[in-house]
């Protein structure tokens, strides 16, 4: 048991954490490369930065949007995210592990706050699951993983809370810790490869959309050429309306 815990918080954690960091870096870099490529291929280089950044910020800190539509859902999901980010990163116990492994750590949140946040995450996670299961449109668009994720995210929080508050734990500390570590590792390693990747990609979304709406010139013709539809009108040879000037302009263009 102890050996498994050691393994889970040692090599396995390093593997999962490195995969997460590198994987997230990878998708961000790939997205940025794609963006730059698309940007260079487009003729239109005008980007409305103000608009894009404004939208991004308004979603990263969705205070104004909270009360607009589906306020309960918005509030629950907001709290869920807060707890999800703060607790693993700033819990004192985790920071000690950091200090031990990489030699430095950062400030911690008080244990009582961490406890409350943990409870909030557990409650919000279950609520989100129920909302997904009970709300019609949500059920219609959910895949299997969408149901699994909120529950999976709750597991390390639940077991972590039980480790800290041993009285409510149904099993021994060791077992709880084992589940805590392994579920945490599982989540960590899956982050860059599943929809949780939105944690780093969301800030890029608006820019992606902004650049995506600008199309490369002449792509349509190439698509037709690639598909090889011989009988397809390519819109290239167009008879013009019989005004003299039009034809002359066209002729000039053709000569060029």
């Amino acid at each position, binding site marked *: 048991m102890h050996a498994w815990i050691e393994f889970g918080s040692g090599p396995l954690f*390093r593997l999962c954490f*490195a995969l997460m960091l590198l994987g997230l870096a*990878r998708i961000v870099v790939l997205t940025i490369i794609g963006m730059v490529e698309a940007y260079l291929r487009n003729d239109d280089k005008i980007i409305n930065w103000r608009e894009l950044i404004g939208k991004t910020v308004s979603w990263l800190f969705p205070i104004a949007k909270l009360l607009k539509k589906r306020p309960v859902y918005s509030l629950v999901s907001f709290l869920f995210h807060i707890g999800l980010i703060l607790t693993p990163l700033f819990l004192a116990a985790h920071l000690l592990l950091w200090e031990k492994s990489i030699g430095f*750590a950062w*400030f911690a949140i008080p244990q009582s706050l961490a406890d409350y946040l943990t409870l909030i995450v557990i409650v919000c996670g279950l609520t989100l699951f129920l909302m997904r299961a009970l709300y019609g449109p949500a059920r219609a668009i959910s895949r299997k993983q969408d149901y699994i994720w909120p529950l999976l995210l709750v597991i390390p929080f639940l077991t972590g809370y039980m480790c800290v508050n041993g009285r409510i734990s149904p099993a021994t500390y060791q077992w709880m810790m084992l589940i805590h570590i392994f579920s945490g590792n599982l989540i960590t390693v899956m982050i860059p490869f599943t929809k949780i990747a939105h944690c780093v990609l969301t800030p890029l979304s608006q820019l992606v959309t902004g650049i995506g709406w600008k199309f490369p010139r002449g792509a349509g013709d*190439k698509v037709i050429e690639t598909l090889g539809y011989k009988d397809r009108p390519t819109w290239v040879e167009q008879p013009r309306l019989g005004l003299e000037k039009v034809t002359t302009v066209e002729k000039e263009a053709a000569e060029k």
Partner: protein
Amino acid sequence: MNRVRNFKLILWMIIGLGAAVATARFMFGLGAVTNLSDRVPWGLWIGFDVMSGVALASGGFVLTATVYIFKLDRFHSIVRPAILTALLGYIAVAVGLLFDLGLPWNIWHMMIYWNLHSPLFEVGWCVMLYLTVLLLEFFPVPAEKYGFLSKIRGFLTKLRLPLVIAGIALSTLHQSSLGSLFLIMPYNVHPLWYSPIMPVTFFISAIGLGLMMVTFESLFTGWLYRREQEVDLLERLGAAARWVFLLYLAIRLGDLAVRDQLGHLSGGEWQVKMFWFELVIVAIIPTVLLFIRAVRRSAAGLMTVAITGVTGIVLNRINVGGLVHINRGETLYLPAWTEIVITLAVIAGAALVFLFMAERFKVWEIQPVDPDADPIKMPEFHPVDSSWLGKPEIVARTKYSLGFIIAAAVGFALLSGEPLESRGVDPVPAQQARGGDTLWIDGNLDGYGVEFLHVRHWYRSGSGESCVECHHMNLPLDRNSGCYHCHSDMYLPADAFRHDWHSSPTGGKLACHECHQKGVVRAVESAKKCDECHNDLIPSEASIEVEQYMAVSYADAMHHLCIDCHTKEAVPRENPDLPRCTTCHKGQRDIIDATVLDSDRRNLTGKRTLLPPIHQE
């Protein structure tokens, strides 16, 4: 092109692994990732990356000489890949050196601080100059593609002959100087290898290696890209190489005879076996095989020869570079996996750049073309999984980066945390044997210590709960720190109290006044004592008092523990000798009755605990 893509994927994975190790190397220092030690300061990185790297790149000067000096134009088609191989080989040497050097950012010092007596200085300069020459020699190839470079290209093409001559001269110098490096170590290098003519043997073997490397590279890339292999040309190279190898064999054996060292060959040491193995694969097998015509004319035969020859000469460089040195004492050097990974990663990087150049520019007569790169081609869905991952560059980007990060993550997982700092450190024997029968207490691991009958002491002090009489607390939050974590030196006191940690928000989170009283000068003496807070740290029965912030030195701690007790016990036992030094320090360990410790010593040795050999005069 699938073969190329899979090969590149493997290369990227190796680089990923290397990136993880490289991070550790620069974060934690050389000791963390290498098995190098004060006794073995040069290891695989010098022996392979630098010494063999330089030798492997010698194909460049051999072939430029063949084509531009001896004007054998039929070899023209393989001179470009040879120059590129040489160029990348030298860049790989430089990169490998950056890992090996303790202070890689000072590598340019060689340019301003001149020591004309040092062969390494000369090697360094020649490598730098030759690298420049190679860059200039290769520059026209990529420049073909860019029209605006045509003027420089024309100028360099005119300058080719002087460049080639300078390149050959520089190569001659540093290929041989790699041998001169070891002339200064007559008492280190095994006499079967050490010879005043090492510069000459190094140079000759470099020529042979250059030819073999060109053969290998040509055959391998031919297989990779399904190109037509230039076997007829390589056959001629092989025919030339056999004489080189024969000459090398003759010189090595002749040298031994002249220096009257043949007697060593009859010895049974492993070095002798190594010598024979090396000589067989470096010279005898290739020479014999190359004299057979059928072998020379088949790609498989040539490949066999190339692989044996290359392996042999690389082995020779590694041997001379550190493996067969005889002043190693008891320290045996085997490269750590991390060292091997870095070496492979440097090679993989060079190979990737080679493939990139070959695909991008006209390195070979026929440039390989990727059929999928055609802009108007209809995308082909994979027949099995009916997927299409995109244009070749997108596929490359997606797959290689995935391979890279997975390999890097595995690398980080394999790099274990604690041994990174303490490679080469054995667990303190006293700790290792805790609870055992007989301890060998040896604080500084120098092999000289005190025999301690653990069970007897335990029994005498009342067994049961008596452990705490001697064994004191561990570090807070620590499970099994060795003694040296506090008593970090044999003779000097060490800091046991981590002030930073106690005041840091992640640690004790203590404000100053919680330990230091107000109005009193803040000093060690006026502060709270450890056990005022850590009252459960030491059970009440313990004989140790925690007052000091400085741990005493290891020797003092041991003495304190023992002498106190022995002094007390001297009276009731009516044994005045009990507190005397000689009671414990019965002389050195060979004086201790071997039979007493025999079983324990074997156990300890099994647990990686190094016990020095018994010195006998």
